[in-house]
């Protein structure tokens, strides 16, 4: 495992400490961040409230009435030493996300194909070929920031955002691809929809994905879409 060159600690206000590992998006940094998070799941410290992983940072929120910044930093530094020694590259299981591409579920598939100068079938082939890494969850409940999309199908956002995008919509915005967990307005190019619920408040954990997960999109037909959707809704 490649060592992380720079580790910085700094406060985010009076109730949070940030651990920053390097300055760039990389799988190796993400792997370190996931290791820190799983360690915190097992061994938190007094006053610990929660952590938020991002591309190069883990932000740890604490109760400032119970602990203070200096204590938190020294505990985290010790923890990191321990983690760095035992860290090893592990292959995360790959989560399969079934997607019905095109049609009413993916109204922008043809625009993406036109922009890339390839056929719709080729867009689907490229989108389903890659393995994607979940770098972080943010923006909306359960929304994954994914890395790994083939640049050939990168497409700018729509000039006029839609006021309503259905939950489960799979989209492309620039070089990013992602899935809308809840119905929201948005400007992404929508190429398909998954029948899975990326976010379900009744489920524990409520988010289907977490930082560090790997995923693959799998093309399905309408019958399969309806079947999975029925199961997801408990029909």
């Amino acid at each position: 495992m490649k060592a992380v060159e720079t580790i910085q600690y700094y406060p985010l206000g009076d109730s949070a400490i940030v651990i920053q590992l390097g300055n760039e998006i990389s799988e190796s940094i993400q792997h370190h961040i996931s290791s820190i998070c799983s360690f915190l799941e097992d061994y938190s410290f007094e006053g610990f409230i929660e952590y938020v992983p991002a591309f190069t940072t883990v932000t740890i929120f604490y109760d400032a009435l119970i602990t203070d910044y200096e204590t938190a930093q020294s505990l985290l530094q010790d923890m990191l030493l321990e983690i760095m020694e035992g860290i090893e590259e592990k292959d995360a299981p790959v989560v399969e996300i079934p997607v019905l591409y095109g049609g009413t579920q993916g109204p922008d598939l043809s625009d993406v194909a036109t922009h890339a100068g390839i056929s719709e079938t080729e867009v689907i082939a490229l989108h389903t070929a890659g393995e994607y890494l979940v770098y972080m969850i943010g923006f909306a409940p359960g929304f994954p920031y994914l890395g790994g999309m083939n640049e050939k199908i990168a497409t700018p956002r729509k000039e006029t955002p839609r006021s309503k995008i259905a939950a489960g919509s799979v989209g492309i915005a620039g070089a990013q691809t992602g899935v809308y967990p809840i119905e929201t307005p948005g400007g992404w190019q929508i190429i398909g929809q998954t029948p899975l619920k990326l976010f379900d408040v009744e489920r524990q954990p409520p988010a289907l994905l977490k930082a560090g997960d790997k995923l693959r999109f799998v093309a399905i037909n309408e019958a399969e879409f309806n079947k999975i959707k029925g199961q997801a809704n408990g029909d």
Partner: protein
Amino acid sequence: MGIKVVKGGLLTTVQDLGRKGYRKDGIIVSGAMDTLALEIGNLLLGNHAAEAGLECTLLGPNLLFETDQLVAITGGNLSPMVDGKPVKMWRPVFIPKGAMLCFGSAITGCRSYLTVFGGFDLPMVLGSYSTYLKAGFGGYEGRMLKKDDELPFKNIYKPNGAVFNWSAGQQLYPEFSDNEIRVMKGPEYELFTGQSIAGLFTDNYLITKEADRMGYRLEGPALLLPEPKEMLSSAVTFGTIQVTSNGAAILLMADHQTTGGYPRVLQVITADLTKLAQMKSGQQIRFKLVTLAEARQALLHREMQLKQLKQTITLKHI
């Protein structure tokens, strides 16, 4: 039995101290904008600090009491009245069955909190009663209150001869007369150099019309970076001041997203979030820079006052 909503008001939501532990899943904290007012409201009634209350914004609701109940109203003064007669804030108030609680004009602040004896009997979602408006869950059916909603009480107060001619808690509530908000340097503060932040602590920042539970857009001296900086998204929190690429400052409030991609120039200290929550569009803010140690000291001081208040109230209820 509980409250029947006769008029929902501008934005009345069920809130507690926030939904904790789910930021990593992209689930926002929500919770009362002014957690101090809500906490004191619960203390006044002998409730657990984490009980839910109603956050009433500027134009409060009209609420019909279907049963006798003991309530407390804290936070901003929105001229509360029971059956047309003004009622005192910052104390337990007995409301008889069939009476109507209404609010009038905003005299101080802009958010009033209504707590009830024992709390509201609503389902907890992911460990909290707070309303997550955008995702549509928590609180009362995941939305703001409207006409004909019914909010049941956990307990019904039975008068026991206790006289509530005392008030408490207002002493530790901040003065609204000055506009000073204490801040710490944000993680990207040092990126802004010299000229670009010259006015940050000497000029006022105006809270624009774009001000809601998610955040306040501020207007004041532009905060420009010497050179454009590509930021990777990272966590933000209540009180984070982000700077957009055109130099505008956005102050994040209770319903802020979990992560953001703009430079974080300042961070409001926790102890001053209450004051901020009670400020409204058109008001000016003056930032004052403090250290992390001072920020924590302010928070510890407030907690000590809250503990004293709790003791005082416990004695009164006996």
